[in-house]
């Protein structure tokens, strides 16, 4: 085994073990949420369709054609580069060089050339994205929730993409020259479309040793950037490249207007109205309804939050945001994610003060079930934001990965009204007349009085 092989193996193992830990944490954070209703079998076809069209096919992206094309360039390049990545791993483990070349024969240079072309397009797209964010300052990236880390995050990945592409081209260019001057050590692959010409033109006169170093440099750069990516994703909005798939699968296939029923309330109201036999099963505890914290949401709501790309398509179409209200559906998603991450960090700290009263009394170890702190989602999301929503579903419609910010807003409103008996005071007269008159306004006239008004 060569030193390179050993180094490669170590990097691979370290990356894999770190990755399992970091991704494990995200999954643990998602599972803080409640179970979702079981998926119905008859919806399976529509769910697969969502995965293929929305996640794989990026259907929703194409509502805005320029970013869609730029994003598609990077995305397709990313998909194809996986072939090269698999070869890198095979090479790294076996200590061989371009192991796929003999198997693929004439197809090999075609595949590599395709990857090079796509990488070039991705390079241009990446530069365009950097320009859009930092120079052109596209409006949907300028909201307050994007300040600081979120805008760093976006730029870090774009920079990483540039490094990756530099790695690919450095490796292929040096290799193209080496294939010519040192055919006994470098397998003949046939000419690569871009580096096959650019390499000899730029590096043709270089020292073979230097070329060998450059080839290794490009190879390692590619591999290390990929490992870095993998470990970076769990703390980044770029997690969507993985989570978009399960997230579109689990997205609701019901009409957008449909709100989830609350069976627990239905049972109480039914017995109140005398519609069922009172079984006396009503619990004595003061019930909590709606969502105060991420544990009251479903795990799908939290997965939504970790899938959010922070693209701001939702916010840019939100009528409340457009008219200067404090609400930004993207911020709702980022807040849910940040709160889930905060709880996760506290769980990881093992600090026993984060146990609820009962666990402390019984001296149980800290788990996600007995977690308690004196914070909640309301420390992230203000009431003003919740109250500004018109439930118009524009955010839901706009999201390229089928996230539903409205569902979270409505669950938090339920908490505010049902559990806290708070909420906008303007609504009190409405609730009163609904309860007392069965109409949204307090009216003294009969509901059918209009029939007497006759034709106007």
């Amino acid at each position, binding site marked *: 085994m060569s030193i390179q092989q050993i180094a490669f193996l170590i990097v691979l193992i370290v990356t894999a073990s770190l990755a399992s830990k970091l991704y494990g944490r995200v999954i643990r954070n998602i599972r803080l949420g409640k179970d979702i209703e079981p998926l119905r079998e008859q919806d399976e076809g529509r769910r697969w369709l969502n995965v293929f069209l929305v996640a794989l096919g990026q259907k929703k992206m194409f509502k805005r054609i320029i970013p869609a094309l730029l994003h598609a360039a990077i995305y397709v390049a990313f998909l194809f580069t996986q072939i090269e990545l698999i070869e890198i791993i095979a090479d790294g483990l076996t200590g061989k060089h371009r192991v796929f070349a003999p198997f693929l024969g004439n197809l090999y240079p075609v595949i590599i050339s395709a990857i090079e072309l796509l990488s070039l397009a991705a390079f241009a797209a990446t530069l365009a994205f950097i320009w859009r964010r930092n120079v052109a300052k596209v409006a949907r990236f300028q909201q307050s929730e994007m300040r600081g880390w979120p805008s760093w995050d976006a730029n870090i990945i774009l920079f990483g993409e540039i490094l990756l592409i530099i790695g690919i081209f450095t490796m292929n260019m040096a290799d193209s020259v080496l294939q010519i001057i040192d055919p006994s050590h470098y397998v003949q692959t046939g000419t690569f479309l871009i580096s096959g010409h650019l390499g000899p033109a730029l590096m043709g006169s270089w020292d073979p040793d230097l070329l060998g170093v450059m080839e290794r440099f490009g190879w390692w750069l590619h591999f290390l950037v990929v490992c870095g990516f993998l470990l970076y994703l769990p703390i980044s909005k770029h997690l969507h490249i993985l989570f978009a798939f399960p997230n579109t699968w689990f997205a609701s296939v019901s009409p957008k207007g449909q709100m989830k029923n609350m069976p627990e309330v239905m049972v109480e109201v039914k017995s109140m109205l005398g519609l069922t036999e009172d079984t006396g099963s009503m619990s004595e505890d003061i019930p909590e309804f709606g969502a105060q914290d991420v544990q009251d949401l479903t795990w799908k709501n939290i997965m939504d939050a970790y899938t959010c790309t922070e693209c701001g398509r939702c916010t840019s179409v939100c009528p409340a945001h457009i008219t200067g209200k404090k609400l930004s559906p993207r911020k709702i998603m980022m807040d849910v994610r940040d709160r889930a991450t905060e709880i996760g960090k506290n769980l990881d700290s093992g600090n026993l003060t984060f146990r609820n009263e009962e666990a402390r009394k019984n001296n149980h170890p800290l788990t996600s079930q007995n977690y308690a702190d004196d914070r909640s989602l309301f420390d992230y999301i203000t009431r003003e934001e919740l109250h500004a*929503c018109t439930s118009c579903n524009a955010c839901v419609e706009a999201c390229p990965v089928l996230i539903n910010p409205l569902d979270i807003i409505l669950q938090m409103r339920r908490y505010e009204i049902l559990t806290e008996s708070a909420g906008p005071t303007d609504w009190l007269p409405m*609730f009163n007349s609904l309860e007392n008159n069965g109409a949204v306004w307090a009216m003294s006239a009969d509901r059918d009085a*209009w029939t007497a008004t006759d034709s106007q």
Partner: protein
Amino acid sequence: MEVPRYSERVAKGESPEILFWVGCAGSYDPRAQRVTVAFVKILNSLDIDYAILGKEEQCTGDPARRAGNEFVFQMLALQNIETLNTYGVKKIVTTCPHCFNVIKNEYPALGGEYEVLHHTQLLQSLIQEERLSLEAGTDKIVYHDSCFLGRANGEFAAPRDVLNQLTTDMVEMGRNREKGLCCGAGGAQMFKEDEPGDKRINVERTEEAIATNASAIAVNCPFCLTMLSDGLKAKDKQEEIMVYDLSELIVNNMQL
């Protein structure tokens, strides 16, 4: 005017084909009442077999549910479902997309399963069946999608089909169909003051409608009707541009 009551029809041993769900706005709001009357005129003139619940109807509970008050919602919804099921109602038409959405999508989980139509869907099928024939005029009319018929339920075609029978010059705003901008009333916003901001949502939407140079705005929702009418007033355009529900435009067209 002659409006059959479900209870009376059932007492006679009859079961009307369609229940017309009037809704709070359609019952009490003076402007929306005119839409109700217009729709009833159409139903009457085409001899549709329908009836209303009258005093037995209550709010569907939509604004309470969206405000977060599930108790009040359930109370109203369960009572309504009790009434509807007692009468054996099968098919419902409503002039309000909020009532439409709640009865169609949310009542089933509470034990109320009906075939539910928005009035623009019924009008569309009446046109298709050639029971309703209209003569297209040339007025420039812009169509505004309500969130609860449009995005929430994916119905973009029916109201447009109807409007295309009424005018040869239907126009769209830039934000239409899936991208339509809310009028600002949904989610129980209608019943509270706006949160602090730069602008009212209805004004933002009305400006977009005004920019099309249409002489009228066609809507399918009593709350959009209020919101856009207020928007026109805020822009001092209420004399030049009118907001109508599609059923009112039909009544004018049929000269009922």
